[in-house]
């Protein structure tokens, strides 16, 4: 297969997933709504002391983003599995890992990018400083694609199971923890006025690692799930 047809299949699948999401846009609001609700409920629960909120804000926002990403994971392959599209991807003339990457990128654009857009507002709500909000955006930009990429492996492994939800969380959460630690700490560090280059480099390294390995692992997992 030539590179041109590979690029075309990649673009076609990306476009298809965005179009499908657009046609079912109410479903797409769920993770975003969850993210906003959890973050706005915290000040009500723990009191509106600005110093306290500023101290816990990085953790709250990142935990909420992580859980929102996990909530949305199931939709990566579920409907394609149920209507047989996934079988068609498996026997398509293009390598499955490339198709998987297109699907994961679409999934991030649909569920991860909106989190980035509302995050600055939530940062203001929690009295974060300008520098912290900038750091928060950078960590979300580097971190949420990692969540989608790692999550895709877990979903691919559990998509054939009737009740895969619990197993999915158990599989995926431990792998999410490094992202959470580095990202939340980066935001807290920047709040204290210290440089966060090291944190960002580590997050970027995680992103590069997961972009290069996750599609291969996801494709292999899908082959097992569907056989």
């Amino acid at each position: 297969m030539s590179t041109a047809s590979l690029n075309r299949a990649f673009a076609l699948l990306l476009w298809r997933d965005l179009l499908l999401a657009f046609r079912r846009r109410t479903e797409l609001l769920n993770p975003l709504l969850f993210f906003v609700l959890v973050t706005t409920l915290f000040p009500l629960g723990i009191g509106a002391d600005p110093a306290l909120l500023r101290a816990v804000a990085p953790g709250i926002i990142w935990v909420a983003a992580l859980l929102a990403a996990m909530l949305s994971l199931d939709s990566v392959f579920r409907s394609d599995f149920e209507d047989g599209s996934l079988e068609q991807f498996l026997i398509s003339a293009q390598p499955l890992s490339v198709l998987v990457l297109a699907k994961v990128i679409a999934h991030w654009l649909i569920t991860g990018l909106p989190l980035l857009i509302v995050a600055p507002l939530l940062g203001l709500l929690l009295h974060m400083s300008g520098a912290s909000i900038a750091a928060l955006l950078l960590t979300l930009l580097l971190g949420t694609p990692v969540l989608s990429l790692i999550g895709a492996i877990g979903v691919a492994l559990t998509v054939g199971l009737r009740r895969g939800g619990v197993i999915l969380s158990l599989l995926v959460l431990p792998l999410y923890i490094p992202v959470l630690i580095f990202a939340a700490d980066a935001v807290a560090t920047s709040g204290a006025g210290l440089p966060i280059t090291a944190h960002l480099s580590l997050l970027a390294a995680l992103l590069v690692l997961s972009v290069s390995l996750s599609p291969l692992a996801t494709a292999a997992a899908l082959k097992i799930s569907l056989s």
Partner: protein
Amino acid sequence: MAAVATDTGLNARHLACMRNDRNLFEQLSFRLGCGQALILEGRNGSGKTSLLRILCGMRQPDDGRLHWDGEDIFRLGPEYHAQIAYVGHRDGVKQDLSAGENLRLARGLGAPNPAFSIEAALDRVELWEHEDVLARNLSAGQQRRLALARLLVTRAKLWILDEPFTSLDSHGIDIVESLFANHLAGGGMLAVTSHHPVSLNDADIIRINLST
């Protein structure tokens, strides 16, 4: 290796498949060449679908080998997949895409067939006026025909079909049988399971009954 040159098409040798510790079939051998149709028969649960999934390369046989033009299909991977088209129980039609969008995707994922445009393929299964209709608004029989139109838009030589006549009316069946006849006449191959008798007139048919 003089045998290799004549070894075209699909060659199955001593295939076996197990399910829930039960042998569905074993020592199954056949050879499917240009213009030939393989019709699988057998009771429910006799392994017809499993065999088709093995032929697609989605499932590994528990024993035996499967060669395409003399090469192992699992080694060929996407190269083999470019030669096949599969329509299974779950027909792979996306409900929230229109008929035309569904076919365009299928075309992009396979090796596009220059002989059939999207419109020509829809026309062939008599869905030409439904190109912009979402698949969820088509009837069950129309969705089935849409799934089968996918066979036309790629250059697949081997069509693998699991119960293609499900929910088709007699006119729909006639359309699909004429697709089969044309495909076989053009040197294509067919592997099909069906509870409905498949009439392929004078085609070269291999019948395998998995229940015996």
